[in-house]
């Protein structure tokens, strides 16, 4: 008789791949409609020109760059958290890692779209790629925008491989459990996986090396995104703490995104047996730590600016503290600091619902933080002639909304194709340890018996 826990795990986690309910179609059709709306908006922007967006002098970075920074931040949910948990061998990570890694890959893809949308002429995006053109001009490697290209592509490649490698043994399970065309497809995807000790060792070694490599890459990605701002002489941008401030914010929003995704998956796919309240509680504690760290960085940034009392910086400072941007600023503080501190700080509230409420606050708050870094500073630079206002136009709002729909759509399609919880890692955590007889001792006994 086979191990009952294994069969149960196979059944529960492969079920969403083999069975399709009406919910799946709803979750595909609605986001697809929104994504189409976003695409139409983008094409209309290409056709009519950038004038239909709210981006104009002096605020050249509006919703698009806000979304770019936001989604790159959300991408820190997965690979970074998963890599750290793997390196410290946290047993509770097993049902969480793949849910998280998927977010990274899709968030990076969506985030990387925004510089292309923001180009206005996306067909010239290939100019960012270092290649010897007929004009003999290479990308300027001393520009933070080119650093972005390298950092995001390295992180995307690494994250994609970090996600794909542990999927191979699970593809083999689906291959063994399916029939017909599906079986043929998964046979190809499983790459002939058999589960020999050699294959397991190589896979685990590769995952360990990639976990070590991916952590500094993830940190570098958001540091480099922060360099897009801190390398520019704009009030409240040129700051030495922007690197760690952005990285902390990215991990913070990433954890919030992960908690929301896990709660939805648990509910929709009936994964109550795998995603336990303890997973939410542990991640909730991490969210609390990151909320405190975020508060520390904001206080640090604000106090130094206030104490320095430099006129151009103070003008931006007061715009966000008590003038036109104050409602957004204080909403951000409530969403990013007060709400997680109260909900996650009190054990009774650290439930799945509590985690989701706090996470929703953080996601909204972190989006506002990105917006408040960009727009108030660009709209109020050093001289009065360069003051201006930014009003987002429908095309930008629709595209921003469509990215959330795109994330939902990609996630739903992924869950339909791949087990969202790593089957083999779960089994590795479940399988019983051997009895007290050491295998080597038993082997020696048998050798002696046969000799």
């Amino acid at each position: 008789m086979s191990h009952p826990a294994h069969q149960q795990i196979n059944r529960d986690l492969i079920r969403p791949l083999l069975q399709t309910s009406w919910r799946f179609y709803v979750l595909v059709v609605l986001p697809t409609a929104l994504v189409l709306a976003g695409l139409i908006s983008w094409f209309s922007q290409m056709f009519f020109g950038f004038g239909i967006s709210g981006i104009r002098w002096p605020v050249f970075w509006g919703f698009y760059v806000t979304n770019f920074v936001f989604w790159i931040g959300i991408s820190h949910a997965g690979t970074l958290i998963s890599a750290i948990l793997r390196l410290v061998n946290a047993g509770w990570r097993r049902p969480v890692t793949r849910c998280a890694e998927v977010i990274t890959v899709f968030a990076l893809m969506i985030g990387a779209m925004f510089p292309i949308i923001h180009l206005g002429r996306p067909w010239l995006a290939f100019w960012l790629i270092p290649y010897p053109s007929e004009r003999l001009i290479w990308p300027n490697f001393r520009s933070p925008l080119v650093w972005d290209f390298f950092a995001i592509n390295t992180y995307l490649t690494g994250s994609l491989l970090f996600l794909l490698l542990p999927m191979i043994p699970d593809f083999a399970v689906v291959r063994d459990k399916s029939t017909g065309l599906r079986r043929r497809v998964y046979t190809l995807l499983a790459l002939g996986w058999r589960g020999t000790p050699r294959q397991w060792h190589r896979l685990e070694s590769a995952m360990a090396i990639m976990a070590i490599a991916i952590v500094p890459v993830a940190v570098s990605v958001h540091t480099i995104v922060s360099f897009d701002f801190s390398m520019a002489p704009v009030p409240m941008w040129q700051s030495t703490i922007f690197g760690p401030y952005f990285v902390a914010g990215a991990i913070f929003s990433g954890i919030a995104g992960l908690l929301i995704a896990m709660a939805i998956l648990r509910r929709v796919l009936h994964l109550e047996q795998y995603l336990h309240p303890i997973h939410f509680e542990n991640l909730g504690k991490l969210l609390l730590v990151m909320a405190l760290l975020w508060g520390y960085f904001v206080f640090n940034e604000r106090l130094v600016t206030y104490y320095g009392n430099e006129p151009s910086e103070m003008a931006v400072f007061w715009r966000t503290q008590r003038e036109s941007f104050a409602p957004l600023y204080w909403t951000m503080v409530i969403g990013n600091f007060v709400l997680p501190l109260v909900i996650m700080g009190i054990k009774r509230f650290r439930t799945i619902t509590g985690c989701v409420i706090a996470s929703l606050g953080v996601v909204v708050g972190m989006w506002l933080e990105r917006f408040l870094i960009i727009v108030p500073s660009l709209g109020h630079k050093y001289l009065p002639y360069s003051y201006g206002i930014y009003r987002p136009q429908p095309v930008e709002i629709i595209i921003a909304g469509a990215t959330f729909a795109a994330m939902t759509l990609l996630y739903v399609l992924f869950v339909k194709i791949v087990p969202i919880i790593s089957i083999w890692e779960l089994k590795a955590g479940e399988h019983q340890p051997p009895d007290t007889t050491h295998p080597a001792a038993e082997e020696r006994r048998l050798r002696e018996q046969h000799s």
Partner: protein
Amino acid sequence: MKAVYALYPDGHSAQQALSRLQAAGVHDRDITIQSAQPMEDFEFGHREKATWMWWIACGGGLIGMASAVGLTWLTEVSWPINVGGLPIFAWWPNLIITFELTMLGAILATVITLVVTARLGRGSTIYDAEVSDGKILVGVVNPSESAVADLEAALTAPPGAQLKRI
């Protein structure tokens, strides 16, 4: 006969089967073991553990680093542009490209090593879909006809063994 193997309900029985096969004189390279998850609690889970993957990853990283230094140096020197008063070949900003390509080199080298050394994409004579349900497969490929009886005896001795032939 192409292969003879048995499926076991737990690692302990599989370990016994392996030990009996070894005791019966079967060479390690002729024994196949398959499981649905890493079995590092057992001795058979540590077979073929040695790997050069870490060194190859370091080598990949060095290649990536050399490529980055070459790319930045070649392009900046061949088309010199003054950027904010920085030197034409400025180490500090170039370190970012160097770091990213070093890591990319290490990651790609790791994945290539995995695919090659884990023999992905190459089939195997023995496989049983019950492995996915938690059974552990221990078997011998291309056994000589004279040894089959001994092998079957060794494979069926541990508790819960389910013998199969191909």
